[in-house]
């Protein structure tokens, strides 16, 4: 929760201070390094390769971006069950448009793609506004609002696609999900840019501080002259825009759009957020924590994949890690309470 840095003199000091300030991040970093070392030993010459890291870059971006979208909502004490369904609704509307325009054949590929992306993001913003309206202005519990909108968004997607996939985009569109720049996947670059923007917005701007304050106590924040309705609405719009970006990456990678793509991501995004140190009740958490959790989950699944462990085991291990990490929290916080008494 501490966000102030008084520019200490040396980098070493800074690191030490960082460790003291945020043992959680250090713990996550150690887990990540430990996992990388472990995987390198278990799969010598296969895990620590450029190819594998490239693959991970392709795979983790869409999930990582969704997880950021979930984190910001959870920081306010809410939850966004409609995350992936808004992602797919935007993507399907965009895909539908792109296919139609592509078939008409009157426009250049680039303009079609631009229109496609713009429409995806527009739909996302609308989805976010709907959630924001019900949460901030009507005052309904976020879990119920997003449970409802999840069903609605999904229903609209199904109505458009009739349960099948939409494909037939301009060829160039695929490049977003599969192209590379100097061997670095575009998706990874997009992920990094998104992280930086999210970090800046959440950790450095008044809106970001307001997010934490609303998560701590919405009423007191409102009584302090903060327009919390606006803050909350923007939170859900931000979340939906993240979903939209993830949607673009997903349909580009699959070269098609379907209503049930990424359906397990919503719950996984909640898991990554909580693993990354955000309190499910709101008021705390960091973008970097979530990023770290996503990296851990990605290393785990890639590593298991290379070693040849069934990828479903990864799910089991993920669940176990989630429970284990939070149980550790329970014991350490108990220790803290005992010490402070």
């Amino acid at each position, binding site marked *: 929760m501490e966000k102030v840095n008084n520019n200490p003199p040396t980098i070493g000091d800074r690191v030490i201070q960082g460790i003291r300030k945020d043992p959680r991040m250090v713990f996550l970093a150690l887990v990540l390094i430990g996992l990388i070392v472990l995987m390198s030993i278990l799969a010598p010459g296969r895990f620590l390769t450029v190819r594998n890291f490239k693959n991970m870059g392709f795979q983790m971006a869409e999930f990582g971006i969704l997880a950021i979208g979930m984190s910001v909502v959870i920081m306010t004490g809410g939850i966004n069950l409609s995350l992936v369904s808004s992602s797919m609704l935007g993507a399907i509307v965009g895909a539908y448009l792109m296919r139609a325009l592509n078939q008409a054949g009157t426009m250049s590929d680039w303009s079609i793609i631009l229109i496609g992306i713009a429409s995806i993001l527009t739909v996302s913003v609308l989805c976010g506004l709907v959630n924001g309206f019900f949460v901030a202005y009507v005052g309904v519990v976020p879990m119920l609002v997003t449970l409802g909108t999840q069903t609605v968004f999904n229903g609209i997607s199904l109505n458009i696609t009739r349960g099948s996939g939409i494909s037939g985009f301009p060829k160039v569109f695929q490049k977003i999900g599969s192209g590379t720049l100097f061997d670095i996947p575009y998706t990874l670059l997009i992920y990094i840019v998104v992280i930086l923007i999210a970090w800046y917005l959440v950790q450095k701007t008044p809106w970001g501080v307001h997010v934490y304050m609303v998560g701590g106590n919405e009423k007191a924040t409102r009584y302090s002259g903060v327009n919390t309705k606006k803050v909350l609405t923007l939170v859900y719009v931000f979340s939906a825009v993240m979903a939209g970006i993830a949607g673009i990456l997903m349909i580009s990678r699959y070269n098609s759009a379907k209503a049930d793509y990424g359906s397990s991501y919503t719950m996984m995004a909640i898991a990554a957020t909580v693993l990354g140190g955000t309190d499910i009740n709101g008021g705390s958490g960091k973008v970097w924590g979530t990023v770290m959790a996503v990296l851990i989950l990605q290393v785990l699944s890639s590593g298991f994949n290379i070693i040849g462990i069934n990828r479903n085991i990864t799910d089991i291990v993920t*669940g176990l890690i*989630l*429970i284990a990490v939070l*149980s550790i929290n329970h014991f350490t916080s108990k220790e803290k309470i005992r010490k402070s008494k």
Partner: protein
Amino acid sequence: MSNRVKQILKAREASIVIMLAVVMVVAFLMNNTFLSFENQMDVIKSNAVLGIAAMGMLVVILTGGIDISIGGQLALVTVLTGQLMKETGFDNLIVIYLLGIVIGGLIGLLNGLMISHLSLPPIIATLGMNTIINGFLKYYTNGAWINQLPQKIIDFGMIKLFSKPGEVGGQVGVPIQFILFLVAMILTWFMLRWTKLGRSIMAMGGNRVSAERVGLNNKNLTTFAYVFSGMMAGLAAITYTSIMKSVDPNAFIGYEMNVIGAVVLGGALLSGGSGSVLGTFLGVMMFAYISNGLTLARISTYWQSIIVGIIILLVVSFDMVKLHRETKRMTKVDIVPIGD
């Protein structure tokens, strides 16, 4: 109007009854067979699983918790018992039912212990559990269906009581699933209304601190709620197998949303302490009638989730608006002209 009548109209169930009536009238206007006994029984049969599971979820929500792993529990029980029946041909249904209830109860026990003794937030503990179960099931079944179940369970699933030949052919009667649903409801209602255990759960859901002060064991009560939910999931799972005559390990992915949706539509508050069996039943029927009405009206089932979603949003918004109005009324000042 007498006070009693007013109280009934004010009750949370009243608004859902009105909505339900609207849905029923619309469905009836679209297709007259909607109200036929046969159709009604069909609706209940195909929603008995949701209904039974919702009873368990209700108890969990009454404690202020939530059970995301309900879908996983249902799937796990159907797969394990289905596999057992298929491999060994074992077909003693009572034992199968008991086994299902025990498996569900054990998962519930794990959930409950994590939540009460490790103080994990319910949503996270059960989310983790769901991930583990689904991972296990995918690994174990590879997504393959389990067919060739013993004839006995298939026959059981088709039992209709008080049956007589229908007008269009086939038998018309009360399906066995209806009876099971009824049993689950009566059991839950009895537990919540008449036993000290049930009252303690209601009390704790309303105020945990007070519960501790009067000496209730919050940890055990919480654990019990998840065990109860798991057992209901077990009962629902075997019932599902009996209807479908086969097991699809992916059938319950995302199902927790339906169950939670039904309970919430029925007026239970996620904050705990508030909710009823009758309300939950009505919530389940709302789900049931919408999908049945659409089918009868030959409207694409893709519309179903849109309508259900909108109704959820409307109902919870309506509740919120009502609450605002009530709290406003409570702070009301009695204004009288000065000087009297």
